[in-house]
């Protein structure tokens, strides 16, 4: 290409330059590598936890040891060396409410990532996690006065013990799967949100997760309770330095959407390509409640994540919008699960995936309707776009429909970046690269248009970053 500025731009826009940097290892405390009952006990000790949580962790460790990897993972998880991971890394022992109080080197990292600036501009509250623990949490004062709680999960265990115990581990029990068990035994950090009845949080709350230490595991745990008639939009983003050795991120997210409430949970996952991202996300939606997952996966080495919604009572609606982009050496195994456990429930899954440079995307989905449910409507649509011949996309839909009165639509399409589309756009003066970007932007538009403007811009930027050198 003849654009003189292009080479320099590619350089400063690379993942390495923007997100892949790392701070000096200045952790206050770092557990020895490996996972033992002693290390788990030490985490509890350092966090000064109540006995029930100490027991919960040890029980979960037992379950983890008994469980196998998910069968569909094949040999893809075999390279994770569970003995070579730091399970707990404490950078600072305080969760601050003012950025000024956050240690300078950590603050600089979040400055670089634009978090405090975004907070000022368009967010109702921000949480920031650095390695194992939350270093900053704040929420707009007016929302706090209305009774909205937005704190680090460790802090919530101390400050709201009853509510915490009532809901924690009820949506995703430790025995759900091997990585949920692992998270349950060593969890640290994450966000805790409670929105009181009728309160509508009009702008998003955001959390940002940053891994800094090499060979570490981040195991945050997020719990969101939207009380009757309330509304909240939570957004999470994440990045990590690019290291030659692998890191592990294994979170558990539990969401309770009560009668008439509405929760939207948006993820823009942008881990560096050395991170295994194995996450369990699940929501239960009660009468007339609406739960929406907007799940964007662009980073990581391997992601296995299938946000799910259990529709528990009539009128509940679940929606999963999944966007995956796999480049060289990446596998995005994403999708979603909807369980219709009540009559008059509706759901939509839209999955859009892109693969390039030999990257691989898989859509894995479950649609389940229990036998006593009537008037259920479900819609699944999966589109995959392959940007070159080396890339791969697979669809693994599962349907378990035990009820007669069910309307289900399922469509799946795989297409290649079309020669005709490229030619058409090029005939209007766009370069091949501009044309490809335009086609890709159009392809992901149904997901991107659901995001608040700032995130839509960010997501498009990340997609463009992935697209650099995709064609030509």
């Amino acid at each position: 290409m003849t654009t003189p500025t292009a080479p320099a731009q590619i350089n400063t826009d690379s993942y390495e330059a923007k997100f892949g940097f790392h701070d000096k290892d200045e952790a206050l405390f770092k557990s020895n590598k490996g996972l033992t009952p002693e290390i788990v006990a030490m985490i509890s000790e350092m966090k000064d936890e109540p006995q029930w949580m100490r027991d919960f962790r040890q029980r979960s460790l037992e379950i983890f040891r008994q469980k196998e990897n998910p069968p569909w993972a094949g040999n893809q998880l075999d390279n994770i060396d569970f003995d070579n991971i730091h399970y707990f890394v404490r950078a600072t022992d305080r969760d601050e409410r003012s950025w000024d109080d956050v240690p300078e080197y950590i603050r600089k990292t979040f400055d670089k990532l634009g978090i405090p600036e975004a907070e000022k501009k368009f967010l109702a509250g921000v949480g920031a996690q650095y390695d194992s623990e939350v270093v900053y949490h704040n929420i707009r004062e007016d929302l706090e006065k209305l009774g909205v709680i937005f704190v680090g999960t460790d802090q919530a265990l101390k400050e709201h013990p009853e509510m915490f115990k009532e809901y924690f581990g009820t949506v995703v029990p430790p025995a759900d799967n091997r990585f949920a068990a692992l998270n349950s035994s060593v969890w640290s950090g994450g966000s805790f949100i409670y929105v009181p009845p009728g309160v509508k949080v009009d702008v998003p709350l955001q959390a940002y997760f940053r891994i800094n230490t090499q060979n570490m595991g981040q195991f945050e745990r997020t719990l969101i309770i939207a009380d009757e008639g309330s509304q909240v939009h939570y957004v999470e983003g994440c990045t990590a330095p690019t290291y030659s050795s692998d890191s592990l991120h294994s979170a558990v997210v539990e969401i309770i959407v009560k009668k008439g409430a509405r929760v939207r949970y948006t993820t823009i996952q942008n881990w560096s390509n050395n991170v295994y991202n194995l996450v369990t996300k699940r929501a239960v939606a009660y009468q007339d409640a609406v739960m929406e997952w907007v799940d964007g996966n662009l980073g990581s080495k391997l992601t296995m994540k299938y946000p799910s919604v259990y529709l528990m009572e009539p009128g509940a609606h679940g929606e999963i919008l999944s966007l995956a982009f796999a480049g060289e050496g990446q596998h995005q195994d994403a999708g979603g699960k909807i369980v219709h456990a009540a009559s008059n429930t509706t759901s939509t899954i839209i999955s859009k995936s892109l693969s390039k440079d030999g990257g691989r995307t898989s859509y894995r989905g479950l649609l389940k309707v229990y036998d006593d449910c009537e008037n259920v409507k479900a819609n699944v649509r999966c589109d995959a776009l392959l940007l070159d011949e080396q890339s791969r996309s697979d669809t693994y839909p599962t349907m378990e429909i035990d009820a007669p009165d069910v309307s289900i639509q399922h469509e799946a399409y795989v297409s290649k970046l079309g020669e005709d589309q490229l030619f058409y756009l090029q005939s209007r003066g766009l370069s091949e690269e501009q044309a490809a970007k335009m086609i890709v932007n159009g392809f992901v538009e149904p997901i991107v248009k659901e995001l608040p403007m700032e995130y839509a811009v960010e997501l498009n930027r990340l997609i463009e970053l992935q697209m650099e050198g995709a064609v030509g």
Partner: protein
Amino acid sequence: MSKTPLLEIRDLHATIDGKEILTGLSLSINAGEVHAIMGPNGSGKSTLANVLMGSPRYQVTKGDVLFRGESLLGMKPDVRAQKGLFLAFQYPVAIPGVTMVNFLRQAMNAKRGEDLPIREFRETLFAKMDLLKMDQEFARRYVNDGFSGGEKKRAEMLQMAMLQPAMAVLDETDSGLDIDALRTVAEGVNALMNPEMGLLLITHYQRLLNYVKPQFVHVLIDGRIARSGGAELAEELELTGYDEMEEALAVAANA
């Protein structure tokens, strides 16, 4: 007087999948001229349009295409577009998720090599849409996605109006249009035509030529120009049909 033609096609041969479709086509178009190429199905009309624009599906095996004296062969389609060539497609493809307004803006910026101020762009866009009797809402729709046949053709004309090419090739722009739409499109084309511009209408039927008057009509048979003439040739074709003309030409060739 030897003036360089705007577009000069010299003994053009082109193949698709190894099959030769254009078999030695020559044609010269000067600024200010309207030419029509008419021909039966399979005579190579669309191939010509696509080859001129540089479609990767076709291979040029012989001959040349000169635009203002410069060979277009070897130039990518976007470079040809930036030089001032435009093709209104017979079957425009859909680009789902991309709005007309966004597409047109990027196309205009790409052609100009700099960003047109948004306000100026919008004013131009709405003026051109008025010209083509298009609702402004149309600009919000995704490019060719779910468009009717007539809407697609109008969208092509809108692109032409925005990009203001020096040389426009209209590939079967009349097909799929009812009489009112045809008239609107033709009026648009006439309004865009100017003495600096060349226009090549590729069509099967004569009806578009009732509204956009060509000075030159060429009959394309088996990948080359079999006969050239003035506007009256189109009328003759309408009366005789392609079969009869082909026969007459064959007889003449053998005589």
